[in-house]
């Protein structure tokens, strides 16, 4: 049976909350499965370190991802290197899998423009902070690929709150009309800051919104990395190599939970109960995959210890790298505003540079 031929509330699952197999395990070799686990651990550890850097004043406001590793890593593992990713602002784990160095993510949240500059060959768009604004971009980018006869697929991430925005509707409607190779991946983490999923829409599921656009919609357990992988792989395959009677675009609703705050500037205890958080923590995607991999005989204490230390070292190295970057020169304020700096902007730069030379950085900088 095609994975998309199911009721919208018939959630796709492979592992249950204890890591027991309840669905079709995707055809992944042991190394890939352990690699997926390693990336989830990496994302979790990175997240904890990033929150702590913010608390220490070493980084600005940061949006944590803990709890969402299953959806991020599982979906990104389904991408080919040539596929494109259009993230929101919380997909540090997904972007990492698709090749964006951790250092870039750190730099972005440390206030460096360079953080948004993915290295050549890494097909990741700049982070989109305004909610749902990347959805039409994903349709347009995929449309360009289709017009040029290329066979890349595009995945676009956004949250449950984004489904209330006009851009969500317009972007997906275009995708339906022009049959673009786009996978719209909704990280439904239940909360748009303090507003619960039920207050965003009266729809029973977010997946069913696909119906209105004439595209496939499917709900998946977002804290089950194997189920997420399977569904995303099927959607990407259909995007790249369309079947006669199926639309190329897909809306995936990955049901999950944000364990932490919306950002480090948010205090979720004001608006949600600890009981609810604890209930969802029992579904932790990392524990589930770990349990499955142990049962499969590909993960033991020794390997876990190795993963743990390598993850810690990798994050520590990335932090060292990012923190060793000097404050960008003030010329960077003006660079890249245009292909060629207009004379008035050149003049503005020169005036500022002259004043800095005259009065020193202390006249500008707070710290």
């Amino acid at each position, binding site marked *: 049976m095609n994975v998309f031929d199911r009721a919208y509330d018939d959630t796709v699952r492979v592992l249950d909350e204890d890591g027991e197999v309840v669905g079709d395990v995707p055809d992944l070799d042991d190394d890939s499965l352990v690699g997926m686990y390693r990336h989830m651990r990496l994302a979790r550890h990175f997240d904890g370190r990033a929150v702590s850097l913010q608390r220490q004043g070493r980084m600005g406001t940061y949006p944590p991802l803990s709890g969402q590793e299953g959806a991020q890593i599982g979906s990104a593992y389904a991408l080919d290197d040539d596929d494109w990713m259009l993230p929101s602002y919380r997909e540090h784990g997904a972007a990492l899998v698709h090749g964006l160095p951790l250092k870039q993510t750190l730099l972005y*949240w440390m206030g460096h*423009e360079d953080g948004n500059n993915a290295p050549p060959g890494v097909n990741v768009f700049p982070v989109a902070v*305004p909610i749902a604004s990347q959805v039409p971009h994903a349709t347009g980018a995929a449309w360009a690929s289709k017009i040029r006869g290329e066979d890349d697929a595009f995945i676009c991430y956004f949250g449950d709150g984004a489904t209330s925005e006009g851009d969500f509707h317009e972007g997906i409607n275009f995708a339906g009309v022009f049959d673009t190779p786009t996978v719209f991946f909704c990280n439904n983490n239940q909360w748009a*800051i303090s507003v619960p999923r039920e207050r965003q829409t009266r729809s029973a599921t977010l997946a069913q919104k696909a119906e209105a656009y004439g595209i496939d919609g499917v709900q998946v357990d977002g804290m089950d990395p194997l189920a997420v992988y399977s569904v995303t792989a099927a959607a990407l395959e259909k995007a790249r190599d369309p079947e006669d009677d199926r639309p190329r675009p897909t809306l995936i609703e990955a049901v999950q939970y944000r364990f932490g705050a919306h950002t480090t500037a948010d205090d979720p205890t*004001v*608006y949600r109960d600890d009981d609810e958080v604890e209930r969802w923590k029992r579904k932790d995607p990392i524990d589930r995959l770990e349990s499955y991999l142990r049962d499969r005989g590909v993960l033991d204490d020794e390997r876990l210890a190795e993963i743990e230390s390598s993850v810690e070292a990798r994050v520590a190295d990335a932090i060292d790298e990012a923190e060793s970057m000097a404050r960008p020169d003030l010329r960077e304020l003006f660079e890249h505003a245009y292909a060629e700096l207009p004379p008035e902007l050149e003049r503005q730069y020169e005036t500022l540079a002259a004043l800095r030379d005259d009065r020193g950085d202390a006249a*500008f900088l707070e710290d």
Partner: protein
Amino acid sequence: MTDTQNLTLVQAVRDGLHNELREDDDVVVMGQDVGKNGGVFRATEGLFDEFGGDRVIDTPLAESGIVGTAVGMAAMGMRPVPEIQFSGFMYPGFDQIVSHMARFRTRSRGRFTLPMTLRAPYGGGIRAPEHHSESKEAFYAHEAGLKVVIPSTPYEAKGLLAASIRDPDPVIFLEPKLIYRAFREEVPEEPYTVSIGEAATRREGDDVAVFTYGAMTRPTLEAAETLGEEGIECEVVDLRTVSPLDREAIVEAFEKTGRAVVVHEAPKTGGLGGEITAILQEEALLHQEAPIGRVAGFDVPYPLYALEDYYLPSAARIEEGILEAVEF
């Protein structure tokens, strides 16, 4: 004697909303996270508990929806006070603002009016993420039919907010989040208003008039004090409303000094500085003794925070700008 409370600017906003909700059943507060959460800056803290979810409303995440439904409510005679969480996220609601909020009175020949106040924190300097630091008041000042108010003190924030909510026309009320908690001031507990469209003189001086508003008022006054020690006396005028501008106060301060500098964190090109300069050209050309200076944000996208201290007018840049006008 009136009882007062010692409040920060954001607390004064909250107090102003509280008073207006209490005084007028037609007032509703609506937006993202304004209810149970009390606002991401706590500007609506406690209002949900006191007035309930029908008057302090958590909406879906949709700026066009927030502004557009507020337009509908206001057309029916309510006084909605929608909040957009950061001014950098107003743009999905921009069509509703310029095509409807600004024009309903005109289009219906006065049949429908929109007594609504759209609040949003604006401006930089708090090491915020991308799109959280812009200062785009000029967009709204450019749009006929809107009033654009920007307070710079707790006392005035409360009084101007009350005046905005009670105003028969739509108001864009931009709150300088850099100084949300920068200082406290005695604020009357009782409701009061501060008139829209009137500037305030923050410092008297005969040598040069410096026009500013919002969060830039403080570094401007700092620069003025520094220059005062060198014998240069600045008249600092806080515009408080950037549309309609208080032409009389602007011209008066200029005629007194013959020199002027405008300070704003918004980009220089197309900013309020150009408009104020034009007013002075129109009304007081013969008093002019030096080119009118502009100390403003640069004409580049607002940078991520590693560079924002260079972007924002600092007291040092303001001093330089004033010296240029004075030494011409």
